[in-house]
């Protein structure tokens, strides 16, 4: 900020259409991103409230390190009481919104209350405050059509968070999309139904105009720069980063398949006979063969040196979708018996355009296949069902409300979800530590809450998985509070002290070596307290029962981590 002040809390009431700017309370000051969301929701939101009602709040919070173009550290967390889980939910994404918010001096943006009258709005935020425009001409349009219209109206330099038709219809699978550095609205705070909460507040889009803003202040610029350099170097030499850059997250397909954990035909098998056709190796080969606009190494945020994103184009030289990620491939590919990356990409584009979570929709479509609503592998039928979602028909709403609703309506027990949120593409019976995460995290079936794939442990052995999951859940909650992408983990892990040095130089704090874990534990403690007050008990920390009795081919594993072990995972935090 021009006068050297630090960030403020911006509070928007959608009923009165007013903005207030408030000093940051002391207890909020030391948190950012996911941890700050948990603190704010616990302080301000009745945990038993209706998620789509006037008492819920939708909060946007950049992480503690956001604002300085540190590689892979400009992520935005969005949170609310989730309409899918009924508890705390945070979801984070890359793109440009977090960076713009910090340039504007926004520590957190809180949207509250309910609109006084029907109709959607565009909320425009700038250094001069808030202004409102009716969004009547944008209602019903997908994000790929809306984003260019908003850029034409408000200028090419703004950041935007917006919802698609899915959010307007308050679907459980609706997320909130943000622009990447090429201004494509492809970076989605996807999971947990946060787009439905934004829809309930009748906000189609928030435009962040950071003109006249500036980078947030740094207390000790020399020390910050030194820490930044150490981090960038550690990141650049780590072998894992090279794999990410060349193959993206799709690198995981063959490994997860070999471990017997690739969701196949609605999680009825962990190995897909056509996995190679949807592998990271195949995706890279296609992108290199096809040439521009295909690009296997694309950065989703300015300044990112990892560039794990990609642009996936067709044979005709037109872009199909960007990015194409592992979890989407898993849920829309093997999970539906679709072995064609072009088809998966086209389904992904439709889902993105409607502003929906491709994991939740993929899981719901898998349930639909099992119920006979769609033949396995029938891409045309999948596309028809997505058009039903777009038209908001009853069948479309069954898919769009997510896997659990789909299972209940269609009479299918085999629903891959925990706390109402579908499993990303790791079957918890064959990567049991991640199963522990799916069961015990407030985030539900979300690998970003604590993926144990990299932990040196026998993934099929129930022993030791609770400890592995605990460590990963704490670290991930820490990274989400910093605004650091999980992909940056190897950099931080091999440059000890860098997180400490970055925070101390940025804020003038004196945090210690264990700050990542301190932040992670604090975040989990706050989230769990919110859920406890919302009525959650150990009964909510379970995987679906069928996963404990239905053996998963090819290794015939069930989820057999004992319940009493699950219940002990965070006793020190409760």
């Amino acid at each position, binding site marked *: 900020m021009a006068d050297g002040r630090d960030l403020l809390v911006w509070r928007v009431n959608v009923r009165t259409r007013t903005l207030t700017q408030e000093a940051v309370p002391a207890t909020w000051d030391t948190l950012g991103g996911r941890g700050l969301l948990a603190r704010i929701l616990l302080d301000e939101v009745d945990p038993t409230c209706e998620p789509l009602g006037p008492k819920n709040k939708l909060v946007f919070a950049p992480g503690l390190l956001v604002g300085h173009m540190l590689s892979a550290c400009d992520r935005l967390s969005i949170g609310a009481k989730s309409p899918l889980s009924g508890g705390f939910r945070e979801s984070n994404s890359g793109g440009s919104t977090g960076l713009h918010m910090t340039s504007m001096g926004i520590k957190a943006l809180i949207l509250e209350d309910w609109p006084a009258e029907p109709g959607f709005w565009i909320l425009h935020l700038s250094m001069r405050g808030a202004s409102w425009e009716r969004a009547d001409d944008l209602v019903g349009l997908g994000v790929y059509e809306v984003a260019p219209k908003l850029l034409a109206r408000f200028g090419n330099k703004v950041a935007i968070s917006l919802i698609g038709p899915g959010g307007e219809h308050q679907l459980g699978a609706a997320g909130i999309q943000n622009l990447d550095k090429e201004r494509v609205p492809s970076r989605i705070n996807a999971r947990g139904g946060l787009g439905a909460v934004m829809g309930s507040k009748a906000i189609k889009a928030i435009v962040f105009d950071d003109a006249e803003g500036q980078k947030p202040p740094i207390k000790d610029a020399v020390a910050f720069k030194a820490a930044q350099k150490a981090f960038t170097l550690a990141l650049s030499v780590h072998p894992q980063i090279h*794999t990410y850059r060349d193959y993206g997250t799709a690198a*995981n397909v063959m490994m997860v398949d*070999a471990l017997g954990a690739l969701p196949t035909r609605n999680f009825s098998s962990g190995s897909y006979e056509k996995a190679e056709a949807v592998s990271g190796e195949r995706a890279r080969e296609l992108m290199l063969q096809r040439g521009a606009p295909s690009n296997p190494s694309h950065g989703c945020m300015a300044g990112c040196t990892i560039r*794990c994103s990609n642009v996936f184009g067709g044979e005709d030289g037109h872009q199909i979708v960007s990015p194409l990620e592992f979890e989407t491939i898993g849920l829309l590919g093997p999970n539906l018996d679709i072995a064609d990356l072009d088809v998966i990409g086209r389904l992904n584009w439709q889902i993105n355009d409607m502003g929906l979570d491709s994991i939740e929709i993929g899981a719901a479509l898998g349930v639909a296949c099992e119920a006979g609503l769609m033949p396995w592998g029938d891409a045309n039928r999948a596309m028809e069902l997505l058009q039903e979602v777009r038209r908001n028909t009853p069948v479309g709403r069954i898919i769009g409300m997510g896997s659990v609703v789909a299972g209940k309506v269609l009479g299918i027990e085999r629903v891959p979800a925990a706390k109402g949120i579908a499993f990303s593409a790791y079957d918890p019976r064959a990567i049991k530590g991640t199963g522990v995460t799916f069961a015990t995290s407030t985030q539900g079936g979300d690998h970003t809450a604590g993926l144990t794939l990299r932990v040196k442990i026998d993934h099929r052995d129930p022993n030791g998985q609770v400890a592995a999951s605990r460590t990963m859940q704490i670290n991930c909650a820490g990274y989400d509070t910093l605004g650091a992408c999980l992909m940056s983990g190897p950099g931080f892990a091999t440059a000890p002290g860098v997180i400490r040095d970055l925070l101390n130089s940025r804020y003038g704090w004196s945090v210690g070596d264990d700050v990542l874990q301190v932040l992670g534990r604090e975040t989990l403690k706050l989230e769990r307290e919110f859920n406890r007050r919302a009525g959650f008990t150990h009964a909510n920390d379970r995987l679906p029962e069928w996963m404990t009795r239905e053996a998963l081919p090819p290794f015939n594993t069930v989820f057999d981590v004992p319940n009493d072990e699950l219940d002990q995972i965070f006793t020190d935090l409760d």
Partner: protein
Amino acid sequence: MQITVKLYLTFRLGRFANQVLACPPDATASHLAQRLGIPDTEIGLILINTHQAELEQHLVEGDTIALFPIVGGG
């Protein structure tokens, strides 16, 4: 002895995806990786006959070994 070797991602570059190799008796996973020019530090996961294995594990006639570079979630 004959060992079936499966390689993934960057390990395939300049090598192969799937090949049967003749190995000396008592060879370990690490020996095999060395022979292929793959540094131990770049290996994220070893599967021998679909079971997770360590670098020091000895191979036996007819084994299938899969080598993955370090990757993680997305």
